[in-house]
């Protein structure tokens, strides 16, 4: 379900670059609508999904993306059995962009789906974290073709994948370092278990779930890696697994995931709003200006970059605008997501993103997972209290910042913070001030090369200025 596609028919049909591993079917777009082709080889499993009642059960609980069967278009006639049109996902995000609780909720959803599937005589044949997306503030399985009939005795074919995609990063984030989720960008099929085992602290050997599913799992993988396949193409020793045992594996994984926890706090900007010394009046004034600029721009969607815990993102969502709320700080994103979950907010998607090193294109040919910049442009970007981080902390000249934003949005709401501001002074307190061009005049001159500045308003009781701009050529 990605916007990036390879062209099959230059006029009409584009097959998703991420949809090639599973022979059951694939995703394609036609006239900006997303479809999924179900191949003939998957007919029996699809019919079982529907007839068992599992599809209806999962869709009613918003655990699986709903779809409609449609007459066409057909992307690959030779293999096609049916075309379905899934409900659209407004913004595609990836596990390495999720905070701890987002990944944990996605893991628990996967296990709950597997649980329900077993009760309906089905099972999940894969457990990829990339099959989960966030819709209306909650995780949802987007791959309708992930199911097959369950036969007593079979192993869970996706057990290893679940451990690599979910359990390994969650354990590393909770027990070693919250930033280790970034390993997911280095390994497209989840974090290798031997690496996970090596990075986890020794105390995790005394946790039954982590011991079994990660440490011993890594050892058995290594031990049997060189086990030659038998004539039938299977490994020599494959056990018959009873349904009780099969269910036991899922329940054990669920308990292990459920026990993992991470509490935000102590990271760089987690307490930003309490730490800032600009007045409550200025803060309220800034909120009012942002609301006014949003009402003027009337965007269809907003990306709030450097959103912290999402205070300003929520101005957009309360106006009914779907908003992606990005921040570099895992604690801020965690707090933001917990609020989404607690308040059952449907329009806000918090994401972890380092703007100075945004998610690149990953996977086969660098095209399986879209770069962050390829998922735009957004109707409106908000860059509040951000420019000093880009231009001073990261030494990016104004011109580059302006050019970057111009490729990503139509409207830009951006705040300029001068050197006199306490937040900028803090950044300069231990380094030489080499930023002679860091002032409002140079800022406006640089941005005027890429945007039309339609509003420039000083935030009262502060030395900051808020701008509304429109990208040139949009």
């Amino acid at each position, binding site marked *: 379900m990605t916007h990036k596609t390879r062209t099959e028919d230059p006029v009409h049909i584009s097959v998703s670059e991420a949809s090639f591993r599973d022979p059951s079917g694939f995703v394609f777009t036609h006239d900006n609508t997303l479809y999924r082709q179900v191949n003939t080889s998957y007919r029996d499993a699809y019919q079982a999904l529907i007839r068992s009642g599992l599809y209806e059960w999962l869709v009613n609980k918003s655990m699986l993306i709903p779809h409609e069967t449609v007459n066409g278009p057909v992307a690959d006639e030779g293999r096609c059995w049916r075309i379905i049109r899934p409900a659209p996902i407004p913004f595609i995000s990836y596990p390495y962009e999720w905070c701890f609780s987002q990944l944990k909720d996605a893991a628990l959803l996967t296990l709950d789906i597997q649980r329900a599937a077993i009760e309906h005589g089905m099972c999940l044949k894969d457990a990829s974290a990339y099959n989960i997306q966030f819709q209306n503030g909650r995780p949802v399985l987007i791959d309708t073709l992930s199911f097959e009939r369950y036969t007593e005795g079979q192993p869970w074919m996706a057990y290893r994948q679940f*451990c690599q995609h979910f359990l390994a990063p969650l354990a590393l984030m909770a027990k070693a370092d919250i930033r280790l989720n970034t390993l997911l960008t280095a390994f497209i099929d989840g974090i290798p278990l031997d690496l996970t085992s090596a990075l986890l602290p020794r105390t995790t050997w005394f946790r039954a779930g982590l011991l079994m599913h990660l440490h011993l799992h890594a050892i058995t993988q290594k031990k049997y890696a060189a086990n030659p396949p038998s004539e039938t193409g299977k490994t020599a020793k494959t056990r018959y697994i009873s349904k009780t045992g099969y269910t036991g594996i899922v329940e*054990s994984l669920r308990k292990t995931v459920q026990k993992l926890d991470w509490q935000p706090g102590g990271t760089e900007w987690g307490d930003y709003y309490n730490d800032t010394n600009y007045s409550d009046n200025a803060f309220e004034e800034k909120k009012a200006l942002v609301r006014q600029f949003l009402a003027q721009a009337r965007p269809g969607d907003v990306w709030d970059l450097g959103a912290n815990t999402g205070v300003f993102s929520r101005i957009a969502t309360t106006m009914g605008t779907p908003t992606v709320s990005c921040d570099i700080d895992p604690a801020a994103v965690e707090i933001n997501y917990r609020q989404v979950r607690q308040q059952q907010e449907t329009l806000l998607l918090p994401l972890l993103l380092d703007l100075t090193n945004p998610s690149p294109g990953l996977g086969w040919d660098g095209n399986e997972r879209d770069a962050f910049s390829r998922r735009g442009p957004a109707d409106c970007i908000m860059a509040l209290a951000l420019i000093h981080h880009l231009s001073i902390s990261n030494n990016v000249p104004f011109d580059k910042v302006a050019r970057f934003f111009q490729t990503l949005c139509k409207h830009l709401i951006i705040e300029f913070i001068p050197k006199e501001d306490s937040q900028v002074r803090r950044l300069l307190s231990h380094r030489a001030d080499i930023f002679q061009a860091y002032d409002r005049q140079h800022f406006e001159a640089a941005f005027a090369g890429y945007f039309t500045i339609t509003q420039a308003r000083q935030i009262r009781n502060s030395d900051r200025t808020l701008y509304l701009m429109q990208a040139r050529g949009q």
Partner: protein
Amino acid sequence: MRKNFQLPILAGLGAALFIILGVAPPAHAYLDPGAGSLILQGIIAGIAAAGVAVKIYWHRLLKIMGVRKDDDSDKK
């Protein structure tokens, strides 16, 4: 009441070798499940199943001895 698998699994780790080997039915998944992962699943599933069986019989024993009255704990 949901089954508690974790403790029986841990308690049964040492008994893994005594689980009877069988042959799994053919699977048609497109993923490589990994040889080591399959072996480990067999062990964990065997222990889980044995643990559940022990738990059920333990509760029945307690009931027979009159230590515990009827409840839902062994009906699942």
